C-alpha cells in the first residue's frame, strides 16, 4: 500500500499587514463603485430609452449613406492628418530619443530633460494636446496634426530610445575607438542596427495616429470627428452610424496594411 502524502494547507498563513492591505483594497473598490457607477434603475431606464422607437439605437438604423461622398473626403482629410502628424512626430522623436539614451546623450542633465519631456508628451492624452493647440493655432486640422505630432514624439521617442539602448555596443565602441564623431557613430553604427525596430515602431505610430485622428474632431481639431460630433448634435444618428462604420473600415485597413508590412520586414 502506498503511503498517503499529506496535502498542503489550502491557504498560506498571512500576516496582519497582508490582511490590512486586502481590506483596504476591498474598501477602495466598494466605495469607488458606490460613488461613481450608475445605479441599477438608472441603467434600466437608459437601456429602455435606447431601444424605444424614437431612441438612439433605433434611429441609427438603417445607416444614412446619402452624404457618403462628403464623408469619404473628410475621411481622406483625417488620414492625411494622421500621416502628417505621425511623420512629423517620428522625425522629431529621433533627436529626442538620442538625447534620452545613456550612451549617446551629450550630458546626463540633457538626458534627464529629454526623458522627462518624452514622458510628459506621452502622459498627456492627445485630446488635451488638441485643445491646447486649438488655443494656439485655432480650430481645424492644423491643431490636430500638432496634437498627433506631440503624442507621437512621446510614443516613438520612448521606443526609439529603447531600441538604441539595446543595440550591440561593440560596433559603436569600435568606431569611437578610431576617433569617429558622435554623429558618425549614430548614423553609421546605431541607426543601421536599429532599422527593423524603428520601422516597426513607426508603423505602430501610424496606426495609433489613425485611431487618434478620428477622435480629434470631437474637440474641433479637424478631420471626420467634426462631422461625427455635428451628426450627434443634430440627432442625425443614422449618419453618425455611417461615419462610425467608415472610420472602422479605415482603421482596420491601416492596421491590416501595417501588420502586413511588418511581417514582410521581420
Amino acid at each position: 500500500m502506498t503511503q498517503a502524502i499529506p496535502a498542503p494547507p489550502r491557504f498560506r498563513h498571512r500576516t496582519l499587514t497582508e490582511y490590512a492591505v486586502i481590506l483596504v483594497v476591498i474598501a477602495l473598490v466598494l466605495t469607488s463603485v458606490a460613488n461613481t457607477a450608475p445605479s441599477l434603475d438608472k441603467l434600466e431606464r437608459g437601456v429602455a430609452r435606447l431601444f424605444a422607437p424614437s431612441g438612439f439605437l433605433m434611429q441609427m438604423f438603417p445607416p444614412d449613406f446619402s452624404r457618403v461622398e462628403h464623408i469619404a473626403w473628410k475621411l481622406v482629410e483625417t488620414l492625411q492628418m494622421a500621416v502628417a502628424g505621425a511623420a512629423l512626430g517620428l522625425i522629431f522623436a529621433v533627436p529626442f530619443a538620442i538625447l534620452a539614451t545613456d550612451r549617446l546623450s551629450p550630458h546626463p542633465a540633457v538626458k534627464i530633460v529629454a526623458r522627462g519631456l518624452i514622458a510628459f508628451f506621452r502622459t498627456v492624452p492627445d485630446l488635451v494636446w488638441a485643445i491646447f493647440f486649438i488655443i494656439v493655432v485655432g480650430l481645424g486640422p492644423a491643431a490636430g496634426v500638432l496634437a498627433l505630432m506631440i503624442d507621437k514624439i512621446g510614443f516613438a521617442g520612448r521606443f526609439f530610445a529603447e531600441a538604441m539602448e539595446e543595440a550591440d555596443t561593440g560596433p559603436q565602441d569600435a568606431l569611437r575607438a578610431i576617433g569617429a564623431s558622435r554623429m558618425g557613430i549614430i548614423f553609421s553604427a546605431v541607426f543601421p542596427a536599429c532599422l527593423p525596430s524603428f520601422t516597426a515602431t513607426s508603423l505602430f505610430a501610424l496606426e495609433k495616429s489613425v485611431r487618434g485622428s478620428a477622435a480629434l474632431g470631437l474637440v474641433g481639431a479637424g478631420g471626420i470627428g467634426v462631422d461625427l460630433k455635428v451628426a450627434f448634435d443634430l440627432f442625425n444618428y443614422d449618419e453618425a452610424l455611417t461615419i462610425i462604420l467608415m472610420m472602422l473600415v479605415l482603421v482596420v485597413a491601416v492596421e491590416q496594411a501595417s501588420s502586413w508590412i511588418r511581417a514582410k520586414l521581420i
Partner: protein
Amino acid sequence: MNAPLMAGEVAAGSTPVGPVLHVRDLVKSYDGPVILRSVSFSAYAGVSLAVIGANGSGKSTLLKCLIRLTDPTSGQIEMLGQDVGALGPRALRRFRSRIGVVWQKHNLVPRLSALSNVLHGVQARMSGPRSWWQWAAPAEVRAEAMACLGRVGLADKALQRVDSLSGGQQQRVAIARMLMQRPEIVLADEPDASLDPQSGEDVMRLLSDLARQDGLTLIVISHRLEHTMAFSDRIIGLAGGQITLDVPTAQADPVKLRRFFDKPPE
C-alpha cells in the same frame, strides 16, 4: 614628458629606431583589485610585439589603457610622441584616429555591406554623411575602400551584408576597415580567438603580412603559442600585474613561454 627615452634593443631584421610606444609604471584597478600593478615596456616602429599572459591577467585592460578606452589609475604612456594621459577630448580623438584596432569580436555593423563597413574606417580623418554609407561616399574614398577589401581578399564580397559572411571573412573585413583608417600603430586583441584554428591562423598571417608590407607597428595579444612564435618579432609576458618576460621572438624558448598560456598546446 622630459625624461629621455631609453633606446631599447631591437629585433633582428627591422630598422632600429626609437620607441613609438613607451609605457612606464602603468597601474590600473577597476574599483576593487589591482589588475595592472606596474607595467613598463616599449614598442618600436615596424616591430611586431606579441603580448601574452594567462586568462584574466589584464592583457585586454592594458590594450584599452593605451588608447584610454579605460583610464589608467596612474603611470605614463607615451605613444606617437604624445603623452596619452594628458590628452583632452579633442586631442584624444585625433590621437585615436592614428591607432588601428582589431578586436576579438569583429564589431562590424551587421546590417550594412562589407564595403560600407570598410568605409567607416575613413571616419578617423573625415566626418559627415559621405563617410557613413558606401553609396554616399566620394569616388576616391570608395576606391580606397575597395582597395582595402582587395588586400584582405574580399573585393568580390563588397556589396554583401557582413552578417552573411563567415567568421573569418568578417574578421578580414574588420582588418580592411582598420587599413582604411591608415593607422600608424595597430593594436589587436586576440583577433583569432572566436575563429576556427585554420581561419584564425589565416587572419593572424594576414595581419602580420599587412603590417610588414606597410611598416606598421603591431601590438597583438595572442593566446596561442604557435601564433606567438610565428607572427611576432618580440614577446612580452604579463603575470601578476607586471611584465615578467620581454624577449625577441628569435631568442624565446617555447618551453619557458608555456606558463603564460592557459592550455599548453600539445
